[in-house]
């Protein structure tokens, strides 16, 4: 599946729609693809609208770009990306210093081949299916 870059203030940003299944149904978040991020991270208040009790997640500490550490609560959530549904660990933090919803590698980049074609403004997602212990590219 291909996605176009999204333009903000004259810059094209690698932002794609990611659906998360909450207690009252699916919600869509336009997430920034961050290949340098270990986990996908959302601001803490997003947990509330998904219907999660933030502090019931697994508490962990993560290092952010300026060297500081933030506390993150990790939850296992049903996601839908590029038409494929799967479970992934998503982090929520009160200390996230950026406004973007961040899509990191954990539980996502092991399922998709992500190609960023900056100059042709395309992002391509190929899903890898685990089938009889073999991986197939579809």
């Amino acid at each position, binding site marked *: 599946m291909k996605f176009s870059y999204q333009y903000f*203030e004259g810059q094209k940003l690698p932002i794609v729609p990611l659906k998360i299944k909450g207690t009252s149904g699916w*919600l*869509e978040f336009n997430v920034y693809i961050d290949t340098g991020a270990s986990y996908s991270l959302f601001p803490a*208040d997003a947990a509330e609208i998904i219907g999660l009790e933030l502090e019931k997640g697994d508490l962990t500490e993560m290092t952010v770009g300026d060297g500081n550490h933030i506390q993150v609560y990790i939850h296992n959530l049903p996601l839908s990306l590029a038409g494929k549904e799967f479970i992934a660990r998503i982090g929520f933090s009160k200390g996230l210093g950026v406004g973007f919803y961040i899509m990191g590698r954990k539980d996502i980049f092991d399922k998709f081949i992500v190609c960023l074609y900056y100059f042709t403004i395309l992002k391509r997602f190929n899903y890898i299916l685990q089938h009889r212990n073999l991986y197939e590219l579809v």
Partner: protein
Amino acid sequence: MKNLFKGYSGQYVAMVNKKIIASGKTTLEAYQKAKKINSTEMLSFTYVPTKKETITFL
């Protein structure tokens, strides 16, 4: 897309069918406003960056 978000820099917007129906300083604020307007269809959230935030080192 470019014009759709004009005037929303630094805010979170809630959309239904690619139309902005609410905005706020947080996702929660945008959500609460949006639910009062449309409580049935799937909401889509986007953070609209400021000009400085479009050049990132994440």
